[in-house]
């Protein structure tokens, strides 16, 4: 579903992502973790067809992101970090607009279901600029899920969400994966995504340090206990020390 082969992305002379290869198949949830500036957002944006890669190839559901961007984008949804909404549209109009962009003909039932799931039903006719940060995040999530994408890219999606919102989001992500979608989620909240993701990619300075399931990574890092938390794995991988000192 998601394939990146030798992806390199450079901004002028700075290399943000360096020779990265990864595959996420349907049903998998890949946790993208790394320190600030590791290249997480750049990777997600390149996969979403926003930043063209400097070299390498990217495929979404079998479609080349560079050569056939429309077909690739039709299969994916991206939830950016701190999403901005259209100030002139209401919550419902955002869903109506998304349905039109992705050609979802009979969207009303699913849209109402999503609004209910994310506790936005009573905000249906509220203009976007009257919503709180967390509610804006929820609207972006509902829009992303509306067309039932085969690929979900989430960049720090928990920021601003309340505990109930986070649980609903995780349930929705798991449901998407169970339905066959490939999911990539970047986050600094390691404790939160530890049990959500089926595998992890640890990035540092644009390079892939480790990719694989938790068991595979633990096996590759001999200093760790077999039941090490994701936080311990992260510090061992990035700083060579499992303790967060």
């Amino acid at each position, binding site marked *: 579903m998601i394939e990146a082969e030798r992806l390199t992305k450079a901004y002028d002379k700075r290399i943000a992502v360096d020779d990265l290869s990864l595959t996420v198949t349907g049903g998998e949830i890949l946790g993208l973790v790394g320190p600030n500036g590791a290249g997480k957002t750049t990777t997600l944006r390149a996969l979403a067809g926003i930043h063209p890669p400097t070299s390498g190839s990217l495929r979404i559901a079998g479609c080349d992101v560079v050569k056939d961007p429309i077909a690739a984008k*039709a299969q994916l949804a991206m939830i950016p970090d701190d999403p901005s909404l259209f*100030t*002139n*549209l209401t919550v419902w109009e955002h869903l109506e607009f998304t349905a039109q*962009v*992705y*050609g979802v003909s009979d969207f009303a039932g699913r849209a109402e279901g999503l609004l209910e799931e994310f506790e936005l039903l009573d905000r249906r006719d509220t203009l976007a600029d009257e919503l709180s940060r967390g509610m804006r995040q929820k609207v972006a999530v509902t829009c992303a899920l509306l067309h039932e994408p085969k690929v979900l890219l989430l960049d720090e999606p928990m920021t601003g969400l309340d505990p109930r919102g986070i649980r609903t989001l995780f349930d929705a992500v798991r449901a998407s994966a169970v339905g066959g979608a490939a999911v990539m989620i970047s986050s600094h909240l390691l404790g939160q995504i530890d049990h959500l993701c089926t595998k992890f990619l640890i990035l540092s300075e644009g390079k892939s340090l480790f990719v694989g399931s938790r068991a595979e990574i633990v096996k590759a890092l001999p200093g760790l206990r077999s039941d090490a938390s994701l936080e311990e794995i992260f510090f061992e991988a990035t700083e060579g020390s499992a303790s967060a000192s």
Partner: protein
Amino acid sequence: MNAGLQYLLLKQPRGWWRRLTRRVRGTKGVLAILAAVVVGGFLVASQVLLAGEGSAAPVAGVRLWGPPGLMLMAVLGASSGTGLYFKPAEIDFLFPAPIGRRELLLYHVVGGVYTLFFSAVWMTVFTFRFAPQWYGGFAGVFFGFGFLQLTTQLVSLALSTISVGVARRARRLTLFSLVVLLVAGLLVTRANLPESNLSDTVSALVASPLVVVLSSPARVFVELFTSETPASFAMWLGGAVGILAVLFVLLAVVDVAYTEAAVRVSREVQDRLKRMQAGGAGGSGTARVATSLPGFAWLGGAGPIMWQKCTDARRGWKRLLWNSVFLVGFALFFVAMVGRDQNEAGTAFGGHAGWVVVFMMMLMNQNFRLDFRSDLDRMAYLKSLPLRPGMVALGQTLPTAVLFTLIQLVAVLVIQFVAGVETVWLPVLLLVLFPLNWLAAALDNVLFLWMPYRIAPKESGQMQFMGRMMVVLFTKSMIVLVACGFTALVGWAAWAISGAALIVGLASALVLGVMGAVVTRLAGRLFATFDSTKDVPA
């Protein structure tokens, strides 16, 4: 075009109207609309009266200066960016969506027509008296703006294909070349017309064949603006539409990957807006300062607030200095010219010193917001401090008043020195400067706290923002005018009783100072009742 993009374009005016009507609710909204109607009516009436008096510039003048002026604006506009600007919501929703680059570009151009239309209507209010026919005037402005917009977008699109560093160097080189060409042109023209003054030299340069040829694309829009008959209007309209069509086709043909540059430009614009919101274009700089300011006296809590504002001002000192130097230099130039030509140095001093004071107090203050206007996102924090609201208001308003007074003092003394005049009224002017600036700063804060706003250029709130600024300026001007009128009466009475300029200055300063204190107190009250939990619209 993608159905979603069509939906957005259709919803845009409706959403704009909905936001506008939402704000009309309540007393404040109604009063704001009334104020806008009064100010708008005043502006339109003044232009109609001017047109009636036949004070319009001759069409020949518009035809001479218009094309190079418009062309210059096109070059400056085109060299101002390094990529297309999209709103953050457009980037978040449209860039990852299955929408083609050309479709998105078409949406971008068509979406700009709304703003273009309202901008053209607004500009026509001020320019129609220069046009023989109102419809030609409007069409000239509308299509001229379209020309500026499309050339800017075309160049931005082209710049998206090269690296940021190269794009920025190209922009600097273009601006440098433009300045060199202008200076060289002036020198050559001057050499050919040794007896001419500066104004004649510039006119001759503008009328030279080279400038006429270079500005010929813009000439079509100026001819449309000045068309005198329906036939000539139709002809030039065809030309204008043709030029815009060519630019539009070029935009569609140039199929480059612009999204990455657009994301960068959008982020830069948003960062700039945040900086402006935090202290104005020049009020809050990022310059490094070697040492921190010594702590101010407590002053009932106003001291620490003043210290923070002064530290902010210190980091933006370069912009403040250049703005002040430019302003004083401009005034000096006119003082020198008027003084030499008309031998009216005294009048020139009075006029231009006053101009510097008024400009700084009324307009420059809008750009250097060292007060509550830069603390909108910190209101909850300010309210949590164990300080009396009146003292917070004092701390917010005094730094601007002191800073502007110091600059004005230097400016007035320099202008007085250059003008070479001796006047008994100089002490009066110097004495009233501080209380006058204090009153103006306090008024700015009262108006802001009463109806706060966020800066949102390039968003749908841009026109409302501009309208609001005009209303604020008008209201402030009226209040300052009334305050000055009352102060003048007191000053006159003091002169009649004492016959001493110093007494007049002291009495006037006292009256203005009391007014400043009262308005600052009012700002404190408004701060105390300010509801920071309410979302503040753009």
